[in-house]
């Protein structure tokens, strides 16, 4: 039977969201060198986030945090076979264009970097490469999806090793989703106004009872039990930033978090992999912070 010769279409919503589906149940790890990227891949990471500095160091160093040097991103791309993501500043579409030109697999328009535009996020529909964006509430998640994000992650409070903010954001987003799913059609225009999100998208989400794109957790994961917690709360995969390479034994901790994410609902396995991992990252009480990264973006 002759094959069809219809030309392929790239950059469709299905291809972008579908790629996010392929990352489900996995761990995406922040790395700053090719060596760290290889440790992450060895441990079973589904993707790495190529950075110049992990969030804990960005927080410590202060100053303006920007897109990573392309040379660092390319060195990491060459070191591993798994997908490589990278971050651009909120609203900095020129950084996003550079990342797309580099062939980055996912762009994180991230509050961890210093925002470039205080009114507008990147028009993500204009790109072939998919985008992930952070959110603290359902309204924020829906605004990012309306702008073209194909994956949403909780913001958490990056670089703190403290899971409390990620839990707050997940519970807020998932709780509001449940409330929306029992709202009557006459309530939805008011809910859309309250959420600050397009009515069509609010109607779609109310009918499905879930976001039209996957919801992952980021910000503060430092232990296998943290990963188990957020997966059981309803996250579909986890980003681990500083939690791995700021711990005393990154390779062992990375492997343990991978297993705990897959077997999140099996406490015997989470217990087994949590043994003898050495020191977790030290972490920060939120009250002690001078900068709240989660407040960036709107």
């Amino acid at each position, binding site marked *: 039977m002759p094959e069809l010769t219809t030309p*392929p279409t790239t950059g469709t919503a299905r291809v972008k969201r579908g790629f996010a589906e*392929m*990352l489900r149940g*996995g761990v995406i790890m922040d790395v700053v060198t090719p060596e760290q990227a290889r440790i992450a891949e060895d441990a079973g990471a*589904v993707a790495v986030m190529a950075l110049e500095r992990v969030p804990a160091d960005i927080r410590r160093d202060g100053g303006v945090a920007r897109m990573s040097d392309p040379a660092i991103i390319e060195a990491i791309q060459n070191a591993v076979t798994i997908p490589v993501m990278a971050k651009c500043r909120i609203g900095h579409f020129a950084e996003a264009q550079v990342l797309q030109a580099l062939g980055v697999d996912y762009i994180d328009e991230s509050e961890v970097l210093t925002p470039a535009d205080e009114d507008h996020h990147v028009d993500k529909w204009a790109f072939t490469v998919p985008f992930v964006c952070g959110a603290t509430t359902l309204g924020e998640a829906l605004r990012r999806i309306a702008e073209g994000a194909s994956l949403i992650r909780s913001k958490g409070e990056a670089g703190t090793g403290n899971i409390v903010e990620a839990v707050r954001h997940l519970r807020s987003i998932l709780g509001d989703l449940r409330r929306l799913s029992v709202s009557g059609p006459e309530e939805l225009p008011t809910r859309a106004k309250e959420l600050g999100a397009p009515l069509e998208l609010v109607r779609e989400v109310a009918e499905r009872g879930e976001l039209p794109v996957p919801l992952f957790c980021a910000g503060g994961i430092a232990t296998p039990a943290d990963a188990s917690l957020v997966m059981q709360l309803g996250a579909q995969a986890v980003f681990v930033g500083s939690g791995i390479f700021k711990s005393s034994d990154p390779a062992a901790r990375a492997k343990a978090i991978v297993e705990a994410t897959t077997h999140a609902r099996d406490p015997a396995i989470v217990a087994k992999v949590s043994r003898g991992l050495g020191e977790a990252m030290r972490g920060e009480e939120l009250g002690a912070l001078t900068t709240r990264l989660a407040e960036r973006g709107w």
Partner: protein
Amino acid sequence: MAKVGVVALQGAFREHREAFAALGAEVVEVRTPADLSGVEAVVLPGGESTTITRLLDLSGLREPVRQCLHAGTPALLTCAGLIVAAAEVLDGRPDQVPLGVLAVRVRRNAYGRQRESFEAPVRIAGLAGGPFPGVFIRAPVIEATGPDVEILARHAGTPVLVRQGRLFGATFHPELAGDLRVHQLVLQEV
């Protein structure tokens, strides 16, 4: 009612579960060898093949799943699942040892990175109802097939859906297509 076991270590297992459930099958998620009990068809889903391979070893599922497929249990192997089941993997990790049950040689990420992921309709031999929506995500390419492997569909000259006995291997994602015909093909074998 057929009982389908979807290997749920990592990846797009939920979409397969929903597809088979929509066809009336009983679906279980497989994370440990005990979960395979009574399963009449197996799915190895898409995801990250290096991660899934590693988790198959850690969970003790490698040998039970291999035996299941080797014994001719109907199976749907999509994208990473096809790589995991293949006889030979190119551009993989050196320690990425596939199950070796499906006689194909596959090259990982052969079309390029996510930027090059695409949709294209494919014509499937023996499948009524017109072309099937092919969703190819960082897809592998089947570079060679063994004598017992039948090629059911091609794209750009290479096989994208193959069959060996009751094992079906796709480089694309029928679970993302909103079209249940490929899942139906597998279920007919139970």
